Each structure stands twice: as structure tokens, then as C-alpha cells.
């Protein structure tokens, strides 16, 4: 499933971390360094499996754990309405 950043969501890197603002609802979220990496990859349209592999390589963890983490964050972002599925 491909995702995209929902409209009305702006974001900014703060050092290695990231802060995002949902202008439609006036709420904001913060992401730590790993969350920020995942977000940037999602913003570039990278698929979750590929993101997990990159995270696993960078943080020397196994791909399954990384994939779980990526999916958990995506679920949270989707729940918050800041990412949405791209219709095919």
C-alpha cells in the first residue's frame, strides 16, 4: 500500500528529528530521529518494506523488527490522519 502525506500537513526537520503540523486541525506531532527517517522516506514515496530494510541496515537490527516498527509508526500516522493511502 502506497502512502502520501495528507494535504494541509507541513513538516520541518529539527536537527535529526522532525516536527509536523496539521493545519486543518491545528495539531502538531513530533518524531524522534528514527521516526523522522521513516517520515522522510514516506514523503518520498518509498514503500514500507524498503524503509524497514534501510532502517535495519542503519541501526543494525533485523528486518522483521524494523518492519514491525515501521508498520506501527505508519498505523499511528494514519490514525492521526497525517498520512493517507494513495488510491490506485
Amino acid at each position: 500500500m502506497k502512502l502520501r502525506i495528507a494535504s494541509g500537513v507541513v513538516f520541518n526537520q529539527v536537527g535529526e528529528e522532525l516536527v509536523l503540523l496539521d493545519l486543518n486541525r491545528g495539531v502538531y506531532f513530533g518524531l524522534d530521529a528514527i521516526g523522522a527517517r521513516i517520515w522522510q522516506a514516506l514523503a518520498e514515496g518509498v514503500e514500507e518494506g524498503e524503509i524497514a530494510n534501510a532502517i535495519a541496515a542503519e541501526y543494525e537490527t533485523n528486518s522483521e523488527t524494523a518492519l514491525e516498527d515501521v508498520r506501527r509508526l505508519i498505523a499511528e500516522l494514519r490514525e492521526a490522519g497525517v498520512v493517507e493511502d494513495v488510491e490506485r
Partner: protein
Amino acid sequence: MPPAAAPEHYLVYGLALRSSVAIEGLEAIPFDTSRVIDCDVIRGEISSLGTRGSLLPRDPLDEVGEATVTVEQSRDERGTFVFTYRDGMRFRLEGNGSRITAAWDPPATAADMATYLLGPVLAFVLRLRGNLVLHASAVDCDGRALLLCGTSGAGKSTTAAAFLNSGANAITDDVSAIVWRGAVPHVEPGYPRVRLWSDSAAGLYGDAETLPRLSETWEKRFVDARGRFVRDAVPIGAIAVLAGREPGPPRIRRLSGHEAAMSLLVRTSAVHLADEATQGNELSRIATLAAAVPVFAVSLGDDLAALSTSVNALRELLP
């Protein structure tokens, strides 16, 4: 009709004001033909925009103490806003604040008007002009600014006054206008007063009566910081986000990048005012500020007498 008095000129938050009303708390400066006037301030009649306006969402940063406010934005005159406070004080901003009309009736006074103008009204004007503004007081310690952020009652002004007692200079009270000189964020000077509620004044000075009242109608007092006031923007050394008082010694924790940005976002009105592009820019400036300057969450002790301990601890945060 008596002849109109010559207007006074002032500098506050980096804005050049020309006012037909003396603005209490500001020091008039000589007229300088080379300086572009940013805001003309007059006293006049103001009526609600009614159906020609739409209400902006409520923003606590636009309020003063208990005086809640409604802010109307004109539908047909771009950059025109009307502020109506519950106590009857009114302001009309035109041209994004390049012309400000103030209206008040007794028992309100010009001193009351100045309190509103120098607080939320000019903060709003700065935001309209694209400045980043934080709800923060600031003090100068050896050429570095410490910003004291927090909600009303968090101890911003009390802590700022304690800093003044320990030899620091005043920069601004409650409204911090941020400007960048090169890559270095600076805070613009406000005016040479630190405003305190009577209990804080009594805690710091023994007796609240030692400090003059801000106006006849308010229980708030002020420390006169003339002579200990900076005249130019000061580079920001650190930002302390004050989060209430708890028993025991002050607790200080450095915030990570996203925590810092989020805690500063609360102190602005990023989501209140402007269009998406402007809000995006404000977020970008907050992120830049949070990356450039260390930001700390601070719980002050609950004992005013021990505030000097907090001052020493906070002073250590500056580079």
C-alpha cells in the same frame, strides 16, 4: 478645540511607532526622518465589523489576564482587524497594523490601553508582518539573551525580575519578537518594565507597595527597568520553557529537537492566524530556532525566596 499635540515617536519590538497618544511605559525617541514609520497609533471611535467581518478562532495569546477578546477580520478590507476586549477596550488594525486606532471609555485609562497595545495587539501586528513572536520574557546576561517562555502564571515575569535583581538587563516582558541576523536568532527589545502581580512583587521585594501600579484599574505592578534596559536586539543564548512550580529545587531538562520545536509552537499562534503558506513558514522558523538554540523544560521551585537559586541554575544554561 485645543490644538493637537505633536505625535510621539517610539521604538518597540523593532517597530517604529508614531502615536498621537502618549504610550505609558515607552520612552519617546527623537523624530528621525530617515526612519520609516511601521505603525501609526491614534485614538478614535471603533465599531464592530458586524456582518462585514468574520471571527477568528479564539487564541489565548491575544487575551490579557481575565479580559477575553473577540478578534474580527474584515471580509472586504484585507489586513483589517477589530479587537474587542470584554472590559470594553477596542483596537482597529488597518493595513496589517500600519494604522492602529484605539478606543476606550472611563474608567479605563491610557495606561490600560498601553497594556493591551504593548502586549497582544503589537504581538499580533508583528505576526501579521511575518515576524516570529513567542509568548516569552527575555533578560540579557553579558550580551546573551535568556528567553523565559510559558503560559500566563508560569513565572516568566517573576523570574525575569529576579534576574534583574541579580544584575541582568531587561529585554522584553511577555512578547519576544525574534529576528535573524545572519544565522543567529536575536530577540528585539520591548520596553523597560517588568510587570508583576502583587503576590510576586511582595515575594521579591518584601512589600508590593514598593512597586508602582501599572494602572489605577489593575492590581498589577511593575519594576522600572530604565537604566537596565538594552537598546538593540540581543543574540539568544538559550530558551527556558517554564512549566509551573513544584516543591524542591528547580528541575531542568534539555529538550530534544522535536520536543523543543513543539514546546515553542505552543507559545506562538502558528495555527491561528494565517494562510497555509504563512503557517508553514512559521513552522519552518520555529524549527530553525529550535535547532539553533538550546531549549530547556524548567520546573521552578515553589518558594519565591529561593528564586535566586533558580536564577543561578538558569544562568548556567547560557553559553
